[in-house]
């Protein structure tokens, strides 16, 4: 791979590589050690950082970050037995992790200073942690770059800085026995579940911010190290194992929760994520912008509420749950076709505005049908309260049950029910994505005229995508009605601080990554957790949300989990400016 044509690029800080690595390693170990000291003198700061010998709260995050930094620094040095950690970039993961540890630690130290009112509140442990993490960062920035420079000649400081975070793709892995590969996949999902659970269970805003900071730097570090690609290669060879592992991990979530309060968050995230995944069929696969998607959820929820046997329902009929699900899905399907049929024949932009209008009209209509300003169907703004809990096969979802020694509360039960619907939606998404229909959707999304010329009936397929999306949302809505006890028109606004609403659903799809399965799930989890955990900024939540949407479109339109096709589409990497050298070759499979 190295020819005499490659150009080396200086590290950010001009330090000999060995000295830099040693500094980073020592710094990381010192940071690690400092987490066992007391950082502050009073337990007033949440998480109790006063105990010597026992890290708590934010210290655990620093400990994790420092440990990972040290591990990757050793692995990058070529220590035997750790080579598997860094099949891709050797030094860029260390840099990112050092940066992550540094920001998390300094955030903790600053939070202590600000919240308790002054630097005096820091114990020596806090000072040591701050200095040690800075030393680590300095060392890490002195490590050489992983990839050769693209252009000869001296680079500016900023160029060297951005370049320092680039990493080559890993080569092909040596084959392992398949049981080992399956074990690795299982372990990966186990770690994923642990991280997710940790995020949900964070008890105070400071810990959640620290968690986000560490994850924000840690995830790209793992990606730079090439572990993502390695795992991707494994999951591609064991697809069924992966899907099973994912659902086992999701299924295990309620069993990790001792408290139903956090299971509520889990159930709500799952509803949000499932609906976002349904929207991903419409937006991600077929490229249709649906701005009133939450209305279809509402149609399903109202249908289920009316047939639930709630004392406030104006229809005295109680349908069994399966029938209510079918009715909700069918009602959404009908609305989807009614809205889609006239609009989808036209230019794509009309759909956006018609769906936006439909979302509003749905809410207004539900609000008006209170008997005073319209027919008496939905009780108007008060909605339909007292929706009874479900009972399926003698299993009452409202009561706690003891399963395998774990007490599963109401929301854990509904979480598991919702998971069943998530599986349906994921299956529909994956099957249609890989089918003739899915390929036709992608073709229409990319170039409708060309797709028509290839004999694709664009209108019919677009209508199919739109109606399918509507049906999936309607189905999810029927469960949502039971989880929330009450359906009111106010739950189905275009934008609101509490997800799901149309704007947040769309944002979840886009933030996570259009056209992927895991993207909307991660996007939904983030968009639900951030407002739920950071209550103190609730006044500026939507403002920040709007600004984040603009910045996201500007700087990373393909989302966190990028679909390869989308990445190319948004960044217009043609043949000519494709990545050079070893990366291009390994992608081409040479």
């Amino acid at each position, binding site marked *: 791979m190295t020819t005499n044509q490659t150009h080396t690029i200086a590290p950010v800080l001009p330090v000999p590589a060995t000295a830099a690595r040693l500094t980073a390693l020592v710094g990381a170990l010192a940071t690690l050690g400092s987490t066992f000291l007391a950082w502050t003198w009073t337990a007033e700061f949440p998480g109790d950082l006063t105990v010597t010998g026992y890290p708590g709260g934010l210290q655990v995050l620093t400990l994790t970050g420092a440990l990972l930094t040290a591990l990757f620094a050793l692995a990058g040095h070529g220590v035997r037995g750790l080579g598997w950690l860094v099949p891709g970039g050797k030094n860029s993961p260390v840099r990112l992790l050092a940066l992550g540890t540094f920001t998390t630690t300094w955030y903790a130290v600053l939070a202590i200073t600000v919240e308790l009112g002054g630097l005096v509140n820091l114990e020596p442990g806090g000072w040591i942690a701050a200095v040690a993490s800075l030393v680590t960062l300095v060392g890490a920035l002195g490590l050489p770059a992983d990839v050769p420079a693209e252009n000869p000649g001296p680079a500016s400081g900023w160029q060297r800085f951005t370049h320092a975070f680039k990493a080559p793709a890993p080569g092909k892995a040596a084959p392992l026995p398949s049981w080992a590969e399956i074990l690795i996949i299982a372990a990966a999902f186990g770690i994923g579940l642990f991280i997710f659970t940790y995020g949900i269970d964070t008890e105070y805003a400071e810990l959640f911010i620290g968690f986000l900071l560490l994850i924000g730097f840690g995830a790209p570090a793992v990606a730079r190290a090439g572990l993502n690609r390695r795992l991707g290669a494994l999951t591609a060879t064991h697809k069924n194992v992966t899907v099973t592992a994912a659902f086992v991990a999701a299924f295990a979530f309620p069993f990790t929760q001792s408290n139903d309060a956090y299971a509520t968050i889990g159930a709500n995230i799952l509803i949000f994520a499932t609906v976002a995944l349904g929207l991903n069929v419409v937006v991600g696969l077929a490229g249709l912008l649906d701005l009133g998607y939450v209305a279809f959820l509402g149609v399903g929820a109202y249908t289920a509420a009316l047939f639930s046997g709630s004392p406030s329902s104006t229809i005295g009929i109680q349908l069994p749950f399966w029938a209510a699900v079918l009715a909700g899905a069918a009602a959404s399907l009908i609305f989807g076709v009614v809205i889609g049929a*006239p609009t989808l024949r036209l230019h794509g932009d009309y759909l956006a505005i018609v769906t936006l209008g439909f979302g509003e009209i749905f809410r207004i209509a539900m609000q008006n049908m209170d008997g005073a300003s319209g027919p008496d169907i939905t009780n108007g703004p008060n909605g339909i309260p007292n929706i009874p809990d479900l009972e399926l096969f003698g299993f009452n979802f409202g009561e706690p049950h003891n399963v395998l020694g774990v007490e599963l509360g109401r929301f854990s039960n509904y979480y598991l029910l919702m998971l069943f619907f998530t599986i349906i939606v994921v299956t529909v998404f994956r099957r249609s994505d890989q089918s003739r229909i899915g390929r036709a959707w992608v073709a229409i999304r990319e170039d409708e005229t060309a797709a028509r010329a290839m004999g694709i009936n664009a209108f019919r397929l677009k209508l199919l995508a739109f109606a399918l999306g509507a049906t999936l949302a309607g189905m999810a809505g029927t469960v949502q009605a039971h989880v929330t006890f009450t359906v009111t028109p106010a739950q189905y606004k275009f934008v609101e601080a509490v997800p799901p609403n149309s704007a947040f659903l769309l944002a979840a799809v886009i933030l996570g990554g259009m056209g992927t399965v895991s993207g909307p799930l991660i996007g939904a989890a983030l968009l639900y957790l951030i407002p739920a955990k950071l209550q103190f900024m609730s006044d500026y939540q939507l403002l920040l949300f*709007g600004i984040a949407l603009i910045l996201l479109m500007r700087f990373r339109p393909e989302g966190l989990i990028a679909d390869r096709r989308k990445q190319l589409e948004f960044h217009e990497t043609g043949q000519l400016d494709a990545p050079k050298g070893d990366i291009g070759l390994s992608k081409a499979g040479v």
Partner: protein
Amino acid sequence: MNDLPQQLANGLLLGALYGLIAIGYTMVYGIVQLINFAHGEIFMIGGFGALTAYLWLPAGTSLLFALPLMILMAMACSVLVAMGAERFAYRPLRGAPRLAPLITAIGLSIALQQAIWAFYPDATKSRPFPEFEGGRIDLGAFAIGRGDLFLVIAAPLCMIALGFFVSKTRTGRAMQATSQDPDTAKLMGINTDRIIVTAFAIGAAFAAIAAIAHGVKYGEVNFKMGFIAGLKAFTAAVLGGIGNIYGAMIGGLVLGLAEALATAYIENIPGMSQLGGGAWKDVWAFVLLILVLLLRPQGLLGQRVADRA
């Protein structure tokens, strides 16, 4: 049905308001094929700009004297925000897939709305807007509010000025050329970037006029008023044939009339007695949009801009 003239007058006034806002959608769409969702918020910001100007003046200033300053201030606010949005949010995305600028527009719309909510004093609830003193003016068959006079004068003036600008001035003709074929227009030496900014600015200025008209008509401004007004104005633009500036005005008038008549008369139709009244007017406007898309998707006047999709 002897209140028919009154309903028609109400509808035309409402329609003129929608039409003024719709100009902004249709001009921007005609040139860059972008639905500027944030246009409703630019309208709203114009209203707050005018209110700010009025509050600067000594208390008790007659609204008639304050009006020129209010208009200037409203236009300045709206135009600045629109040009800033174009420069920093939309321009970097030119050439990106169509979804990207649409989502930016949504983000911008939410951010502007929330910025007013959070930072404008007392904007969490409706702020009272100055009104003309005196009762309604009786014109025999119907009466109009004093505030409506502003709209009656401003809307035709704006339309005439815009018609003159687009057909007679150099910039206006450059605008037409850009909307027909931006690449060729560029080759002919037209600075298309400047034309696009001009389109945003004119749309915003008209939205600012509409915001003052809205303020003096209803006597209040609030941070949410841009959303539904923007939706209606877009409907008006589609009704008239999007990309067509005269169509936007006609579409606005038709939409306003339809809304007024639906509010007044739908409940007289047998079987629909419960679906009339003000609570359902938005629903009927939406039904009209669906019907137009179904029956005459190119709009009432048709698109002057060739559809390049």
